[in-house]
């Protein structure tokens, strides 16, 4: 039994991804790290409930999102206008075109709902299957699919509406996203 890899030893490998997920939920690096810390402590005391051989990252992400929804989402609403401040910081003019495209994207991403951001990170960025994402979010596979589609559509809309005057400066990938909406 002792020769079996302890999932606790693998936890550290998932921390960067947990931070990225937390960041996409909270939009604030200090809050994100607090959230990750809470999730790690919670995971640690529940490791006996983790089934070895199953997806550790999915398990950790589930704990992280549950922690976010039970503690942080409420807290975030109580803070006056965290989005506004963040959006202001993020839309400062960066020097490089590529960077500008990234902040445009971040801006738009920040305007999505928690559920939309979550599903885009899980399915789009992390590459979890719809089935895994559904299990992690505690909802039906169909819900995840339609939520993902709506989130992508909304993201494309936001980028088109908000960045009209900056379109000429965005990079090819962003342009393509915007044009993709136009074409459809």
């Amino acid at each position, binding site marked *: 039994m002792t020769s079996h890899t302890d999932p606790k030893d693998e936890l550290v490998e998932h921390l960067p991804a947990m931070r990225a997920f937390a960041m996409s939920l909270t939009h604030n690096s200090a809050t994100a790290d607090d959230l990750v810390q809470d999730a790690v402590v919670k995971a640690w005391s529940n490791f006996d409930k983790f089934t070895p051989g199953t997806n550790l990252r999915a398990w950790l992400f589930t704990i992280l999102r549950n922690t976010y929804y039970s503690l942080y989402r409420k807290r975030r609403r109580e803070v006056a206008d965290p989005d506004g401040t963040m959006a202001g910081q993020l839309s400062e003019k960066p020097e490089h075109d590529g960077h500008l495209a990234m902040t445009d994207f*971040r801006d738009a991403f920040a305007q999505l709902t928690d559920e939309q951001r979550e599903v885009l990170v899980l399915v789009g960025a992390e590459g979890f299957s719809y089935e895994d994402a559904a299990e992690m979010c505690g909802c039906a596979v169909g819900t995840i699919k339609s939520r993902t589609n709506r989130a992508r559509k909304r993201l494309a809309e936001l980028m088109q509406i908000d960045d009209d005057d900056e379109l000429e400066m965005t990079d090819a990938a962003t342009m393509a996203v915007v044009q*993709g909406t136009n074409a459809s």
Partner: protein
Amino acid sequence: MEQQIDENLRRVYSDTANEPLPDRFTKLLDQLRQKERDKSDTSPEDDS
């Protein structure tokens, strides 16, 4: 369109995911391990 959105997503996401891990997390894990060691002092060691 889907592909391009995901491409942007992954770029933004990996920005954070590629950051060096702050010290607080290595310290946190050390603390958790230490606590566990203290707790399991009575039981046979499982820490090789």
